[in-house]
């Protein structure tokens, strides 16, 4: 426990310092810049036209599909990491087990492909 904390203490300090630097830069700009907002300046940029409506509206479902696929494949990568590191000790059985897992996933991937979930036309 002590050693784990010891390993990650530099990361924490690194994080604290980088957050401080980012905040300092942002704060410096906010303080030293000459702020003079007015209605025309603060409207959203739409090539010179008035903004038609709110931008937070419906979006294409394909972005959602990509996000779902990412979750599945990222999970796959998460399973691969421990397997890759310890492959020398789990031998042929471990290798074949992972092959079985990957082929199940591969079938899913082929299904997505044939369904056209990966197409952006």
């Amino acid at each position, binding site marked *: 426990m002590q050693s784990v904390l010891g390993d990650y203490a530099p990361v924490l300090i690194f994080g604290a310092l980088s957050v401080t630097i980012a905040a300092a830069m*942002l704060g410096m700009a906010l303080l030293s810049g000459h702020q003079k907002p007015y209605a025309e300046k603060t*409207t959203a940029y739409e090539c010179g036209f008035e903004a038609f409506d709110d931008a937070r509206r419906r979006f294409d479902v394909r972005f959602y599909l990509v996000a779902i696929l990412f979750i599945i494949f990222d999970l796959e990568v998460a399973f691969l990491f421990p397997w890759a590191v310890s492959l020398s000790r789990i031998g042929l059985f471990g290798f074949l087990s992972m092959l079985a897992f990957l082929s199940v996933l591969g079938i899913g991937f082929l299904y997505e492909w044939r369904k056209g979930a990966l197409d*952006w036309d």
Partner: protein
Amino acid sequence: MAQFFYHTLIGQIILMVLETLAVLVPLLIGVAYLTLMERKVMAAMQMRRGPNVNGLFGLLQAFADAIKMIFKETVIPSGANRALFLFAPFLTFSLAMLAWAVIPTGNGLAVANINVGILYLLAISSLGVYGMLIAGWASNSKYAFLGGLRSAAQMVSYEVSIGLVIVSVLLAVGSLNLNDIVLAQRHVWFCLPMFPMFIVFFISALAETNRAPFDLPEGESELVAGFFVEYSSLAFGLFFLGEYANMILMSAMVSILFLGGWLPPLGIAPFTWLPGPIWLIFKILFCLFVFIWVRATFPRYRYDQLMRLGWKVFLPFSLIWMIATAGFLMATGLLPQTGGIN
């Protein structure tokens, strides 16, 4: 004196802060000069001169840009969510810095030599997606929103193939520690036996950092600047710096995973005279040069082509190559032995 730094808590904390600053300050200066390098190198490739007025050879250009940006007005659009609008650049920038905690610049010479270094890098670079999504959403502008969605989908798609490439490197290393990954390349750099994966990783790194030819989330002709259309002043600058810091980070990752990190090309006399960090810097500079070279050479991809490349080419290819690597290492008995509890 050494007693104070190594054996008291305050001393250790001061030492860590100094180590951190020794990474962060050169990194920030490097980012500033990378913007200059990009303009200079692209100018040379287009047979013209880059910035050459401010200071000798234009060397003060980066600082002039920064000072100009500080004194600009930070415009916050009326429809924007103010807190999130300012939080997004802050997040992007601090994450780009934070990833550098684990990069080893010499044997054991990292601020934090943690055992799951490569996983940490993967996690931090995944978190970068939040900055873009939040910026795109909080601006309340249609361009920004679409740019944010596109960036997120693009980063997420290429992250999968990056993950698979990393797994196949790990197969040959047997450890998640970045130091071990470099040391495993003493005999041969992984860019030779895993040349296709090296290429896949490099191209995915281009896509991951929204660089040309995959820079269409910011496609200036259609989306004006993508998720940061509405940003000005140093809020814009933080995105800019974060993006360039990510470029350097990705170059460092390419160097560490495939180009032998701080190791010299050959372990014999004239090469070993240069210290390790210098070699790492040379390799990072080489990768950055290729980043800029690619930008000056190739036209932009279309979005459907980009997604097709990520999901239908890189993902199956890296998956099959990863299995082939594992099978080859199993069959030839070349798998690295992982001993003890590590």
